[in-house]
């Protein structure tokens, strides 16, 4: 009887990968999202066309498609949905995001620098920033409406307060993690305080600023959609919220898809900006 060679060792793809070896199987790379969309779309179509539930509970894909067409066309004096075209809804939401995040960056980045550079300032300011960050933005939205009214001002304030803590904390962490040798090099080459900030600290923290910005935009987007539940038309969140009155589940699903796609696109734009501003990060 011949003795077989030892074959009782573990041979699992995921174990090999966790052990630090590259996974040779790349079969699903790149096609993953396509498969995912096809899978969800397939199940949705199947269930919807089988008419297990009524069209109001689960509209078919072509109903949602008609809602999309309706949202970008006008018919008999009716413009799009809820009086505005789809791009006006999205545009209004994005404009709120841009203003809120702009002020958040303008305030959060210097604040983060201060937190990272000055111990006494950090001791006092960090608890405040941390407290604000831990609040769900809608928790203080009523207060902002009382202070700034029901129009856009209160929404931009809401986004500002929601978006600046991640930026400030990201920049502060970036300052704290600057390689000491970078600072030593600048000092021994004769850098002044201004040189140190301009040539060493700002460029060192730029990646952290962009990461903070990405987190902030993501957070602001989920916040604005919720905030538009009050006086949010035009606005994609306002549109989504309004559908419940007329049981327009097709529009509701359309809104979900649009909100998701916009979120993915915004993330993509920030990543492109990162690639552009941080070219040294591109490994050849």
């Amino acid at each position, binding site marked *: 009887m011949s003795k077989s060679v030892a074959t009782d060792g573990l041979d699992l793809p995921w174990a090999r990968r966790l052990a630090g070896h590259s996974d040779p199987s790349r079969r699903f790379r790149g096609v993953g999202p396509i498969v995912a969309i096809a899978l969800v779309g397939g199940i949705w179509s199947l269930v919807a066309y089988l008419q297990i539930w009524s069209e109001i509970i689960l509209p078919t894909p072509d109903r949602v498609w008609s809602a999309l067409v309706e949202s970008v066309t006008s018919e008999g004096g009716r413009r799009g949905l809820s009086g505005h075209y789809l791009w006006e809804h999205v545009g209004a939401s994005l404009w709120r995001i841009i203003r809120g995040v702009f002020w958040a960056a303008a305030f959060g980045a210097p604040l983060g620098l201060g937190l990272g550079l000055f111990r006494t300032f950090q001791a006092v300011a960090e608890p405040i920033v941390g407290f604000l960050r831990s609040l769900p933005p809608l928790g203080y939205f009523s207060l902002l409406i009382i202070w700034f009214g029901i129009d856009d001002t209160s929404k931009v304030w809401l986004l500002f307060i929601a978006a600046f803590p991640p930026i400030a904390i990201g920049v502060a962490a970036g300052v704290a993690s600057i390689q000491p040798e970078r600072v030593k090099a600048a*000092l021994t080459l*004769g850098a002044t305080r201004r040189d140190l900030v301009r040539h060493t600290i700002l460029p060192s923290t730029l990646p952290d600023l962009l990461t903070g910005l990405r987190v902030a935009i993501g957070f602001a987007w989920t916040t604005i959609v919720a905030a538009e539940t009050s006086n949010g038309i035009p606005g994609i969140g306002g549109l989504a919220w309004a559908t419940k009155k007329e049981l327009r589940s097709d529009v509701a699903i359309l809104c979900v898809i649009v909100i998701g796609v916009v979120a993915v696109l915004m993330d993509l734009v920030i990543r492109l900006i990162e690639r552009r501003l941080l070219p040294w990060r591109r490994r050849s």
Partner: protein
Amino acid sequence: MTVTPQQAETAPSPGAEGETVRGLRLRGVSHVYRGGVRDVVSLDPLDLDVVAGEFLVIVGPSGCGKSTLLEILAGLIRPTSGDVFIDDRRVVGPSRDRAVVFQQSTSLYPWLTVRRNVELGLRVRNLPRSERRSRADAELARVGLSEFADQWPHELSGGMQQRCQIARALAVDPPILLLDEPFGALDALTRENLQHSLREIWRETRRTVVMVTHSVEEAVLLGTRVLVMSHRPGRVVDDLRFGFVTLNSTVAEIRSRPDFVETCRTLRSQLLGL
């Protein structure tokens, strides 16, 4: 010319072009690390005179305070007691008259190309762009990195990164060049290569150099003067003069000379005995 200490402090390093420095003086310089549990004396009070043009190598076991001493010379750490003087000016902080080459190449800026890294010290001096560039290119040529001027630092090998650091330090034309175990993280062959280059640079410029290393061979090969330091608390136990660096032979030839080998052996056993 005598300068009162007060004046010296308010005018740290004019850093004038072609500034000549006669030497470096340490008087009673000591350093104590304030620990949480107890203080650690890293450097016993030290008097030292470094003459201009000297290649001083400080060698000793790890934890002998030699890197602390170098950072004190650089002005990055304040001595617990005593003073460092450059000629008659008391050192109160870092300055470009003492450029430093660090062991870690993380001191290079990853967002700047190799050339722009070398220009860093010139940028903070607000030199015009063309002059920055020509001086950076000259230093890059000196260390053999001309072809790599437009690369990112992370694209360079460890040895080339150290060459880049040397070029960056030399670009500000510092009267004193400080090196903190500059080749400590390199493989043996690369290390020999860089020792050769540093030797050539010193022979060419006769700049005042203070280098810290734990390699006995490196100390004997490069130093005109070698300070041997003891384990903590750091103390200078020997002060030796060598001339191997001034010989007109290649590094390989020097390494195989019997007197070089013998000197290294003696120094090594002295260090092991500490």
